[in-house]
């Protein structure tokens, strides 16, 4: 019978294309707006490291000014999101974490070791070798570097796939040389496509920034006395006359992450950083009540308000808009179905049960839902293209993934079914005797 109902639904769709188009259009509009918003929300709030996000922690040390909170908002008393150089270096001495890495962002001018080549300034992350296993960074060729390379500030570099394609034609470039800021660096690894969204480990440049093109040992820019390109916040009036003064200052400018695989390990590391803070307090530092934090990735993203309340409000509004579209669809569907009452009366007289009528109209409702869903997907796609072109930083964010495509169709069918519930029930309850005479 399903094939028969599909045929009847198709005949009905064809018979009144304007009314059908209005219904499909109403559903599509609601789906398009809500799915565009939902897609952005879904990607913004997604877990960038789902396999271990509960074991990887952002480290926050409360070195900030005791008299003036870091944040203006509710979390005024919370520790700053970045660390000082000397605190990070002290933490790096601990062997409690499975992996840990201090890091900073900096641009390096890169070129091949050829005369006349024009250098290109590339986004570079200076970090420890633990960065790669801690964040499960996939490698195409080679690997990261070891702790010795960190300690000796070895001039080694890991390339992104794009840069390896550009400079080395996609070949295995491990062992090749690349000039960074005029100095030779040896390629030790090439990573595969890797773009964690959000860019959780450093939210300074934008929550949804692309990942870096180059990775070098943390001590390389330090040895070159480089500052970070990201945010540097200082609160203490200090005499900073040299780079060494800066490194020993209370300025926070580094990101610090640690992998702690068990509760015991986490508690041990928490105890370690608290003990360190208390020790430092004796030197006149850490003047605020003890509040050093280890935040797993999702807690961290929530703390940093990667998904803002505005985004949530926007999503609520989008779904309210969908509800309005559905109310319109209910009205249109009711008009269409009730107009058909005489024919339903004939079918009932010829032996159709109420359930047969419900199934016939239910199939039609589902067809309208699927068509509305497909049209809604097109609108979502167009909406996301518009978002990408209007807002910088959303380039890698505004994409429909397969899960969202399935969700869009599912939501459309569910919405259409919801909209069709009352009209279908009404048409199944008509008294055939009344309508047969009226035909």
């Amino acid at each position: 019978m399903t094939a028969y109902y599909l045929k009847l639904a198709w005949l009905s769709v064809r018979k009144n294309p304007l009314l059908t188009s209005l219904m499909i259009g109403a559903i599509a509009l609601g789906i398009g707006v809500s799915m565009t918003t939902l897609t952005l929300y879904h990607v913004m709030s997604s877990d960038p490291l789902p396999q271990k996000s509960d074991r990887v922690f952002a480290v926050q040390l409360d070195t900030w000014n005791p008299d003036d909170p870091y944040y203006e908002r509710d979390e005024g008393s919370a520790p700053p999101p970045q660390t000082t150089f000397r605190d990070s270096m002290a933490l790096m001495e601990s062997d409690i974490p499975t992996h840990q890495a201090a890091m900073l962002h900096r641009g390096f001018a890169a070129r091949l070791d050829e005369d006349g080549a024009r250098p290109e300034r590339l986004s570079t992350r200076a970090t420890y070798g633990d960065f790669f296993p801690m964040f499960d960074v996939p490698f195409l060729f080679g690997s990261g570097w070891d702790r010795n390379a960190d300690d000796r500030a070895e001039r080694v570099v890991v390339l992104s796939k794009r840069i390896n394609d550009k400079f080395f034609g996609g070949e295995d470039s491990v062992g090749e040389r690349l000039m960074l800021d005029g100095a030779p660096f040896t390629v030790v690894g090439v990573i595969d496509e890797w773009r964690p969204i959000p860019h959780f480990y450093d939210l300074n440049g934008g929550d949804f920034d692309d990942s870096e093109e180059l990775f070098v040992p943390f001590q390389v820019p330090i040895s070159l006395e480089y500052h970070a390109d990201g945010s540097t916040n200082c609160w203490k009036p200090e005499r900073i006359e040299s780079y060494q003064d800066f490194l020993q200052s209370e300025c926070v400018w580094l990101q610090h992450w640690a992998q702690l695989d068990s509760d015991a390990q986490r508690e041990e590391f928490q105890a370690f950083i608290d003990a360190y803070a208390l020790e430092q307090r004796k030197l006149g530092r850490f003047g605020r009540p003890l509040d050093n934090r280890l935040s797993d990735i999702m807690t961290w993203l929530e703390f940093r308000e990667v998904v803002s309340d505005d985004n949530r409000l926007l999503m609520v509004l989008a779904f309210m808009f969908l509800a309005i579209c559905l109310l319109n669809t209910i009205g249109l569907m009711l008009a269409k179905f009730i107009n058909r009452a005489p024919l339903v009366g004939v079918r009932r007289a010829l032996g159709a049960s109420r359930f047969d009528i419900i199934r016939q109209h239910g199939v039609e409702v589902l067809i309208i839902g699927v068509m509305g869903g497909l049209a809604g997907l097109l609108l979502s796609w167009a909406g996301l293209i518009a978002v990408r072109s209007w807002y910088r930083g959303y380039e890698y964010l505004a994409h429909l993934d397969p899960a969202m495509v399935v969700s869009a169709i599912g939501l459309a069918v569910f919405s259409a079914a919801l909209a069709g519930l009352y009209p279908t029930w009404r048409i199944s309850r008509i008294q055939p005797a009344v309508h047969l005479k009226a035909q």
Partner: protein
Amino acid sequence: MLNMQDITKVYAAGLIETHALRSLNLEVKSGEFVAVTGPSGSGKTTFLNIAGLLESPSGGRYMLDGEDVSSFGDNARSKIRNEKIGFIFQAFNLIPDLNIADNVDVPLRYRGFSGSERKRRIDEALELVGLSSRRNHLPAQLSGGQQQRVAIARALAGDPALLLADEPTGNLDSLMARQVMDLLEEINARGTTIIMVTHDPELARRAGRNVHLLDGQVSDFQPLEPPPAEADDDDGVRSVA
């Protein structure tokens, strides 16, 4: 085939009750061709709706083909309508978007027959009414008489025990009306019980038995003269205080 005892039908609208049928008693034997006549408002259509299980009686007992169907629920009534009753309407009531064969197919679909069985029955029914060659036409492409013959084919395709015809020739000219009546007589001759509601005394005379309704009851009075032509039959109700 059909036995109604003390059937009543009361329509209530607020404080006003309208008695459409009052203690109606009627028995129709298997194979009979009965014409039901009566003035406008006498309850003919209400009787036909109850006989066809399109409405439930307010009281009384209705036996159809040996079964007490008076208190059947909606699903059971739908099943009996589909399996035992064929309907022919004054306005033909064909489904305009479906071609002739698909119109005849409608009751067979709800019966759950296989595709081959449905095709056989459609072919036979269209053959019987002489419209095999028009099976792919839409109703709008046929004359009124042809449309009524399609409706008859649709009513017969499920091989019902009882055929209910509500003014089957009311929308046809005299020639087409005669053809339709010839067809109904032929169907009756094959053993199908027919109950036909009509205003037309000439058509009523062609039935085997006439039942006259008056004020919602079967009347012993048979009009000697044909009643004046009436424009339309309302729902067959008469208001009483």
